[in-house]
């Protein structure tokens, strides 16, 4: 655990007890079993908003607290522990980051205070195919009279159905694969020409497929220069998601460790078996090294660094591998009971698989890390 200041310690403790007491894993089950198709629990989000969590990285000028990314990461980690389904990532992190980094004064004024208050939901619409590939943006934006119209389809849009504001990566020039020619647009979720379809994913939170058919878009940042905002925003998203995944993996590990200490077979507590001990110790090693990457990445953003590519790919790749390993071991070490739906292991496993892919899997980020390092 990073060395925290008083304000960070308070935030972390508040998040920890809120997640444990007010939003345990049973809440995710309830959301799933409600069959509402909602990607989060609105009541819980309202509470989170009241606690100020939606405004942690929003500048004070726009009614946020400007506590920074490490603070937000701590909340994501704690809510990740109990698999809290919330727009913390899509809105409090991604939406706030995109508007802060790329928004005009008017855009900031219009949206940041509402985000900070927990009143507006935002969603980033970037991917178009099954695998994360932001440079491959093909969705067309064409200049038309007073603005731009968008045509095309985005998928894997987190909290896309609930979003009041869609932040859309579109192509105004160049070819898929080019970073030049990508432009970001703001489009209200309920704008004419926008249709949204629910994608029911294994994690019970899901995502949206969003189709734009002549919908109007307002430019965020500069035309053709969206990559300069999109890439830093995606890196922040990856780091924030890695913090959430770290929390989930840690909780899954702790639940498993408890089981190892209580389950008896062959007259022995199974945690006394050396092969399980060594596997547990290796998981602990991965947890500790991943934590270092996640916290360092959060601190690096807070320090004002402009290039967080390596740090983000490192954090996301390590968190993905960690989530993969720990979720598998959680099931295996629980044996049969871990395979049943009444146990939480499956929920951790399914969330892990979705989070692993979101904003690029370990494979994507190993490739990217190598590129950034020049090989």
């Amino acid at each position, binding site marked *: 655990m990073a060395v925290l200041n008083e304000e960070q310690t308070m935030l972390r403790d508040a998040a920890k007890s809120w997640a444990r007491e007010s939003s345990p894993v049973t809440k995710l089950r309830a959301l799933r079993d409600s069959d509402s198709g909602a990607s989060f629990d609105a009541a819980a989000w309202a509470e989170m908003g009241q606690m100020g969590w939606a405004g942690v990285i929003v500048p004070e000028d726009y009614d946020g607290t400007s506590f920074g990314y490490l603070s937000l990461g701590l909340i994501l980690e704690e809510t990740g522990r109990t698999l809290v389904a919330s727009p913390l990532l899509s809105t409090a992190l991604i939406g706030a980051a995109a508007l802060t980094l790329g928004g005009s004064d008017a855009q900031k004024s219009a949206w940041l205070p509402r985000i900070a208050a927990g009143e507006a939901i935002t969603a980033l619409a970037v991917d178009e195919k099954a695998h994360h590939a932001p440079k491959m943006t093909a969705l067309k934006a064409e200049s038309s009279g007073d603005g731009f119209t968008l045509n095309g389809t985005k998928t894997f849009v987190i909290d896309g159905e609930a979003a009041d504001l869609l932040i859309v990566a579109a192509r105004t020039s160049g070819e898929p694969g080019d970073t030049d020619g990508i432009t970001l647009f703001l489009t209200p979720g309920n704008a004419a020409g926008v249709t949204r379809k629910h994608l029911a*994913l294994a994690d019970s939170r899901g995502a949206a497929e969003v189709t734009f058919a002549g919908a109007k878009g307002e430019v965020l940042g500069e035309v053709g220069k969206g990559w300069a905002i999109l890439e830093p925003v995606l890196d922040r998203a990856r780091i924030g998601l890695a913090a959430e995944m770290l929390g989930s993996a840690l909780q899954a590990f702790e639940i498993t460790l408890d089981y190892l200490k209580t389950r008896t077979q062959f007259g022995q507590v199974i945690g006394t078996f050396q092969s399980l001990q060594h596997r547990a110790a290796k998981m602990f090693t991965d947890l500790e090294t991943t934590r270092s990457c996640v916290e360092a990445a959060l601190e690096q953003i807070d320090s004002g660094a402009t290039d967080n590519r390596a740090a983000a790919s490192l954090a996301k790749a390590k968190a993905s591998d960690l989530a993969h390993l720990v979720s598998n071991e959680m099931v*295996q070490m629980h044996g049969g009971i871990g395979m049943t*739906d009444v146990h939480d292991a499956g929920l951790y496993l399914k969330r892990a698989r979705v989070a692993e892919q979101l904003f690029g899997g370990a494979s994507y980020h190993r490739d990217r890390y190598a590129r950034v390092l020049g090989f």
Partner: protein
Amino acid sequence: MADFGGGDLEAFRAEVRDWLAANYPPSLNSPMDDETEAPWGGRRFNPTNKDAKLWLDRMAAKGWTAPMWPTEYGGGGLSREQNKVLESELRRIKARPALMSFGIWMLGPVLLEYATEEQKQRFLPGIVKGEIRWCQGYSEPGAGSDLAGLQTRCEDKGDHFLINGQKVWTSYADQADWIFCLVRTDTSKKHEGISFVLFDMTSEGVETRPIKLISGSSPFCETFFTDVKVPKAQLVGKLNGGWEIAKRLLQYERQNISAGGFGAGAGIDVVEAAKEHVGVDAQGRIADGDLRTRISAHKMDSAAFQLTVRRAEAEGKASKGPSAATSIIKYAAAKLNQERTELTVEALGLQGLGWEGEAFSAGEIGAMRSMLRAKANSIEGGTSEINLNVVAKRVLGLLDHQ
């Protein structure tokens, strides 16, 4: 029969071929219309396509649902070579199985070895004919890897046994007619206090509850016994002598699992998924070199596994005893199927993350669910940890911790 001549075998092949031409119902050449046609037999077997039942009855009449069992108990009485001919002819016409049955795969072989003549006469013909569908009462909530730790009590009440307790992971308990069940008849000993009994699932006091898995619905049940009365004639083997039978039966179960691996070949092919969703480079290689490498390594391990199964079979036949390679097959099969299904989900990307709904094809949803279901491969039928312990101790001769 040992020097069964090639000529006789060819005559047998012709005979099988003629019989199949005359008796295999043409309506079974199409895929199953619905699950009711899965030929599990039993009292409630009532397939939508009645030919599934006709096929079962015809095969059972020849004893070919249990081709190598003795004819006196309804079996086919075939030699190993004849059975291979029968199997190859069934494969040739792509015949559906006539009968899927735990009775044939697991219970029958141990009855042939351990049951009294009376018990054999009573139970085996019904198994061959698929009249009775069986389930297996082994695992309990507190007795998984440590199966011998089971606690379901069986008391001697003079003229009958009285059974109380709970089983778990009972496949198809809610659809089975009878159960073969491990019970505790002596609480003062562990392995020597277990007995092997058979009883009717319609007995008073039997209750089943289906288990939902992380992958969705499943054939597994929890099964509860409350003062279930069982006639003493339904004890197989000696009182407190059930552990030996239990272990032997597990061998048959594992052979069953090993033969096919786990769901190999089913569903979406990982290479096709990667080519479609990840794309290929100018040389036709999967564009993600990292994923491609892992798929290649997996395909190699898969090929190595298949070659090992084949080698173990050949060696087993040649040496009339199990090859050392058989000891690692269950472990390797579980690992491979987990890898295969994980790689498929990864190759599909977002399309591999779907749980339900029209945005995903049945194959894509199947990929996710197969990946989840495959996690049990290293748990069911003996965990991988137990498999490795067994290899270390029995095959490599390493000793227990003192």
